[in-house]
């Protein structure tokens, strides 16, 4: 497994990488075919593809002599995680608030 250097947001912050995602949304493409669509160098395209793969936006599989890129779901789930995170976050915080209110009530009575 390769190390994750980019987060999903950084991954799609780049114009070339967004373009790659757009192209792959139409159909799966080999690295060669993708590289042909860009003015930038082939190694540069490969680098972008690698970033997208590492962040889970695309997956690459060997098909014959070609390496085929296709959209993957993992990167798209990242934002969904926010919902789950905040759902728990707010419940935890509201429990804090409840405790604080209770504490203040007691404090007032004690005065």
């Amino acid at each position, binding site marked *: 497994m390769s190390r994750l250097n980019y987060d999903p*947001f950084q991954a799609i912050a780049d114009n070339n990488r967004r373009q790659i*995602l757009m192209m792959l949304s139409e159909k799966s493409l080999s690295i060669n075919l993708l590289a042909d669509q860009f003015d930038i160098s082939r190694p540069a395209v490969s680098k972008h593809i690698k970033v997208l793969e590492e962040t889970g936006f695309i997956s690459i599989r060997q098909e014959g002599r070609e390496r085929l890129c296709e*959209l993957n779901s993992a990167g798209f789930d*990242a*934002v969904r995680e*926010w919902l789950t995170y905040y759902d728990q976050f707010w419940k935890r915080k509201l429990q804090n*608030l409840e405790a*604080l209110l209770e504490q*203040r009530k007691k404090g007032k009575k004690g005065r």
Partner: protein
Amino acid sequence: MKRDIRIKWFFPHPVEEVWECLTNPELVNTWLMKNDFRPVVGHHFQFHARPLPKMGWDGIVYCEVLELKPNERLVYSWKGGPRPGVITLDTLLTWTLAPVQGDTEMILEHTGFKGMKNMLSSIFMERGWKKGITRRFENVLKERGYEQA
């Protein structure tokens, strides 16, 4: 796909007390996060927490008070991202209080989660991508189940 968070909570305390805890920055600090909130519409403030690099968040929430009706309703924006100047989470927080026989019923709504589909779409739109391409992209995402309830 679920887009919003809505939590209903009952507090056996008067609305005035709950409101105080929502709008007094020192109190907000004790139960929520470090902040420089002020109960003034248009006031920009921040919350500070531990960063969550995995989720692309540097730990700062950028907010603006949008609505304020004492003891009833408080609305502020809730934005964040991986580093200053980059907003990837653009949401809205609404607190609604209602007195129930001397106690308080609170509804907390955290809305505007766009999901990756909408997020990508809006990025593409901003860049002036052709509508047809965006639609195709959306269709692919739909096929892959991102549109499911």
